[in-house]
């Protein structure tokens, strides 16, 4: 199935009758998907509408809860222990630590291929830049790569893959003092893929175990790859590849390579397009479909009717405006990256409902001069009341039946704290649950 074509109900093009649901979730990223799942589990009739592919396409696929405090202390071993001390405006403070736990339990339940639920303690995962980063949940495929595992590691780079230099990453890990020996080797991928082959091209070839030609002989690609890598193996019990090991059949590929190499195989998360992120998105969409929600993607919510209460919203589709109405709405349109928060020279705004987004008047106060300084823009987003309802500047709710979840929320810098997915899951869960309760 093509990844970006998930329209289930095909709505009428002439907008006469509104498409109805009890809860309407706007946005199909981690925040919106969790929200819709939580609402569906609470018994509500749920519909999710989303425009473009979510931020998961760009994200590593790791699920961070909290790696550093807003003051930069860390890496934290126990994210939950640090949550009560967060500033009042932080979304985790709004939902509270026990809701974060409940939300993670929902995540663990619907996404089987993730690890980390056995402990409250953060894991340190090697990144493609060679650093380590603290995270709470990781794809099963990254599990054998953890830095607190003391078995030796071989990292494998591919000659034409400019994003990952295995040898440099290995030296970088040693510089961080990891408790094992780590080496990097670079090899060419078997067959003759073009130098600029996309990551998805490698994944597809491995998914189908397609034949490649090696020294004039036709070989299945997995065997040929294992053979090449095996020559460089010197007793390491773990072998790390860039995250290209299949899309649909990732587990099978990893196991086959592992069997052939006699070592545990893991993937190092990479930048966009991120296969682990896309796999997570797929898993959540599958779970939501199983939960019976109606899903429509590819078109934006452009307008709405309502004053104190949202009556209905309009999805713009091929020039037509299709009304959708619900009792409760969840805004999960993402932050600056997902385009749920936008800006121009005059200021920062939330484009769908024009909810208030606090920001400094002078746009030169939006950022720090240091590349990793204290950037206000990273905390841009709507502010809410205790029930996650976006509020106006005076603190009153913008609309009585609108809640917000995920990166559209302000008050936290997910990049510095390493809290992105955790906040989206926790607030998505809380908003979805609360919306479902109120709708019934």
């Amino acid at each position, binding site marked *: 199935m093509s990844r970006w074509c998930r329209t289930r109900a095909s709505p009428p093009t002439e907008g006469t009758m509104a498409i109805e649901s009890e809860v309407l979730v706007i946005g199909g990223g981690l925040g919106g998907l969790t929200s819709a799942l939580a609402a569906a589990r609470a018994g509500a009739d749920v519909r999710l509408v989303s425009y473009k592919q979510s931020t998961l396409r760009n994200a590593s696929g790791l699920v961070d809860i909290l790696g550093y405090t807003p003051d930069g202390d860390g890496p934290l071993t126990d994210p939950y222990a640090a949550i009560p001390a967060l500033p009042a405006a932080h979304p985790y403070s709004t939902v509270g630590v026990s809701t974060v736990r409940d939300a993670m339990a929902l995540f663990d339940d619907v996404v089987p291929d993730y690890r980390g639920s056995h402990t409250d303690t953060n894991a340190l995962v090697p990144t493609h830049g060679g650093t380590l980063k603290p995270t709470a949940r990781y794809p099963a495929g990254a599990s054998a790569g953890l830095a607190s595992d003391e078995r030796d590691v071989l990292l494998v780079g591919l000659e034409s893959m400019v994003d*990952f230099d295995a040898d440099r990453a290995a030296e970088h890990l040693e510089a961080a003092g990891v408790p094992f020996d780590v080496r990097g080797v670079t090899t060419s991928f078997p067959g003759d893929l073009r130098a600029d082959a996309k990551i998805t091209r490698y994944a597809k070839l491995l998914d189908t175990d397609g034949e490649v030609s090696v020294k004039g002989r036709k070989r299945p690609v997995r065997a040929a790859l294992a053979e090449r890598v095996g020559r460089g193996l010197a007793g390491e019990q773990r072998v790390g590849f860039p995250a290209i090991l299949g899309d649909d059949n990732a587990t099978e590929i990893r196991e086959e390579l592992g069997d*052939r190499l006699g070592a545990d195989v893991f993937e190092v998360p990479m930048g966009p397009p991120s296969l682990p992120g896309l796999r997570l998105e797929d898993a959540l969409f599958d779970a939501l479909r199983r939960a019976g929600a109606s899903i429509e993607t590819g078109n934006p919510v452009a307008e709405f009717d309502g004053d104190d209460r949202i009556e209905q919203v309009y999805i713009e589709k091929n020039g037509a405006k299709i009304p959708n109405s619900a009792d409760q709405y969840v805004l999960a349109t993402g932050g600056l990256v997902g385009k749920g928060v936008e800006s121009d020279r005059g200021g920062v705004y939330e484009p769908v409902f024009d909810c208030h987004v606090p920001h400094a008047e002078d746009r030169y106060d939006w950022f720090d001069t240091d590349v990793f300084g204290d950037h206000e823009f990273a905390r841009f987003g709507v502010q809410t009341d205790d029930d996650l309802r976006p509020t106006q500047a005076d603190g009153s709710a913008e609309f009585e039946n609108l809640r917000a979840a995920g990166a559209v929320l302000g008050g936290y810098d997910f990049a510095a704290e390493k809290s992105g997915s955790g906040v989206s899951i926790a607030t998505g869960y809380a908003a979805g649950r609360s919306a479902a309760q109120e709708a019934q």
Partner: protein
Amino acid sequence: MTSAPHIAVIGGGSTGTGIARDLAMRGLDVTLVEQGNLTHGTTGRMHGLLHSGGRYAVSDQASAEECIEENRVLRDIASHCVEMTGGLFVKRPEDSEEYFQKKLSGCEACGIPAEVISGEEARKMEPHLATDIDKAISVPDGAVDPFRLVVANAASAQEHGARIETHSKVTDLLVEDGEVVGVEVEHDSGTGERVHGRTGGTEEIRTDYVVNATGAWAGRIGDMAGLDIEVRPSKGVMTIMNVRQVDTVINRCKPKGDADIIVPHETTAILGTTDEEVDDPEDYPEKQWEVDMMIDTLKELVPMLDEARTIRSFWGVRPLYEPPDVGSDDPTDITRDYFLLDHEERDSLGGMVSIVGGKFTTYRMMGEEISDHVCGKFGIDADCRTADVPLPGSEDFTVLRDYMDEFGLQSPIGRRSVERLGSRAEEVLQTDGPNPVVCGCEGVTRAEIQDAIEGSGSDLNAVRLRTRASMGNCQGGFCCHRMANELHTEYDESTTRAAWDELLQERWKGQRHALWGEQLSQAMLNYALQATTQNRDNDPAEDDSIDFAAFDSGPEDVEVVSDASVAADGGYDGN
């Protein structure tokens, strides 16, 4: 004199490298010292206009004539650095007809080919011009890449035996018996190309003559020997758009004014500029209103600029010079001409000349005049050849197409590489291994990055300037770490990491003036790619206190596949 005189040239901008090339080609022994990268000063922060002279055709006809002459020379000797876009002086209904006529007759008087076209014809050339533009004068303006041109001049000087030292700052002039006899230089990382972390040192370079080509800094060099050089630095802002809204240089046909020109440059268009005197060429305010003014004024010429995405803004300082007796109040009144200050005649201090003022477009002519002067001092009779001998990369531009096929480069990547490299394309792109693209926005391949590293060491900012990698829409969000990867294994991990961090910081700097709309979203994405995905902001390698045992080492029940029997035969059907 038994051997060729040894000349120190201070300053690695267009003027200094132009002089170094000229002197070296005439057989003199040249050492050029530059405190930063080549183009660290004004040359790396200018508008990129190859003047036709049209801008000076009314107010400063001597400069205008020099411009058109050099415009023709550079098209010839530096074809791989120049794009002949053509230029227009456009007139809005409220602009003076009298001035329009003066511009036209001024161009004719200076020998600048100029032709009046109607508003309709102008819009046919440039569809995004405002609908109420009356008419325009077309002139042979062009776009020029200052980085490429300066690197080519330095390369040519080197081919002729010159020593080029970057990241080497002149900290003092050596003066003995009323004469400058050399310079004291502080090397940032030892001599030769720059390597991070290599310790530098101080060197006394003894010379027969010193050329001060430090532009806006010339006064500071003068101070070292108690000389008064009245440079009046004047700043100007330039704002880079994400696409080329125009393919022709668009000037407003008005007397003088801020925000009156748009120069198409590679994949971008650059708006400019302002003219405001500052005290310190390195430390001056950069203000939001300046950027806003560029957009708000120039949208009168090209309305779509109002909504367009800017990727960054930067400022430069003009090294204007005014003879002490003139005393202009307004920096826009100061002449754009250049001056050669012979300190022997002027200040009774032998052994040094300063060159101040001028323009990028006339750098070669300035170099020729200085070189004539230096040769005169030593009684050397050697002809200037810089107007005739093409720069490295521009020798034979006609063969470019063939290279593209030969190297299997896909257009537009291939076209861009070959255009950047000119006649050096064959030498650079001929590699054994695969040649993937490292910077997608600008289409820069591994081979080009490797070539630049060979030329400039572990300094990724210098690699950036040579190749344009990380200078496109994403401003390095997707490729800074890739560029760092390319430094390895030639340079070790810690050197690579230092260079990587320095590049990230540099790339952040100029975006500050473009942070709204799409570019702010891009900045957040970049921040997340670096801080979230890679934890670059909290790298444990820079913090030795991690207790690894305190973190999760993985679930107990993980299926371990490494059982002995599999491991014994290697687990793969190898041969």
